């Protein structure tokens, strides 16, 4: 028989949060946003570096499924998620999420689609452009989601089986 033990810990964090001093919520959030604003140039540079690595990996890939290569692409794309918002280009986060979804589906299916991967890499590059209009970014994202969702149902069925 499996034994289950319950414990009711009292985290010290609760007392610390209530201790005198500290910051008002509004001021803290303003400070956090200001801090993030300050790292915007670094974030943009890091995103560009990740994009370059991703492009290089993509051009080295052939049409056959190559697990380590697909995993490497996934590692690069997942590292960039979250930085788009900081750089003032939130569409990049959505595009990279779609890219990771696609690569995850391909890994599940042990299949490779050079064109689907390529469209995500090119979209990432386009979305890095500072003067891209909002409507254009939305159209790109719609297209990417259609591509990654094409494999979703099949991958789901494969992972259940």
């Amino acid at each position, binding site marked *: 028989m499996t034994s289950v033990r319950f414990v009711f810990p009292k985290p010290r964090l609760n007392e610390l949060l209530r201790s005198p001093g500290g910051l008002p919520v509004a001021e803290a959030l303003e400070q956090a*946003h200001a801090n993030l604003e300050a790292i915007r140039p670094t974030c943009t540079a890091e995103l560009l570096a990740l994009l370059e690595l991703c492009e290089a990996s993509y051009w080295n890939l052939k049409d056959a499924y190559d697990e380590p290569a697909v995993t490497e692409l996934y590692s690069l794309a997942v590292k*960039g*998620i979250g930085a788009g918002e900081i750089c003032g280009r939130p569409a990049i986060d959505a595009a990279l999420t779609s890219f990771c979804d696609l690569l995850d589906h391909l890994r599940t299916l042990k299949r490779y689609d050079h064109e689907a991967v390529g469209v995500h890499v090119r979209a990432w590059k386009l979305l890095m452009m500072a003067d891209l209009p909002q409507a254009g970014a939305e159209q790109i994202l719609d297209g990417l989601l259609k591509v990654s969702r094409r494999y979703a149902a099949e991958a789901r069925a494969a992972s259940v089986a």
Partner: protein
Amino acid sequence: MALDVASRARFNLEKAAVLLLDDTPLGMSILVQIVTGLGAKQLYRCTSVEMAKEIATHQEIDLAIVDAMAPEGKGYDFVEWLRRETQEPNCYCPTLITTGHTPTSDIVRARDCGGHFIIKKPIAPIVMLERIIWVAKSGRPFLFTGSYVGPDRRFRDDGPPDGAGRRREDLARAAAEAAAQAPPDQQESPEPHAAS
């Protein structure tokens, strides 16, 4: 749970020891900017699971913010280790897991590693603050079973199925609810939970 961004309510993270684990400079930088903006001063910045284990073994931590570190998911392994291998109070440490993307094969791991909350990137400072306040306040019990150690995952308080509780806590909750519904002159003071 939603916080008002214009709220003047105060909170204090200055004395909280916060462990941050992220193996990418970009991810670590974003986390540091958010938590220092929220007022945290005592940060342990860990860029590897080994560093984080060293800190969790030798220092008392009040909050852990751990990146899942996809695709290997080493962050989940760290949280599982934290729950199973560290001494009190660190084994109960409020733990937030951040992730950019969770591969399908890691969903069960993410659920079962013992984290309090999973936060999807991009992380907005207000979301981080809401989750920190929530994990600090929540009275979620910890479970120790053969296969799972961590906060009770049944924190949507929907009550037991068909109204019949199986666990001691279910009975205690039902009694507390019944007492709360009783007229004031019939109410008894609730029995406090023992902390361990």
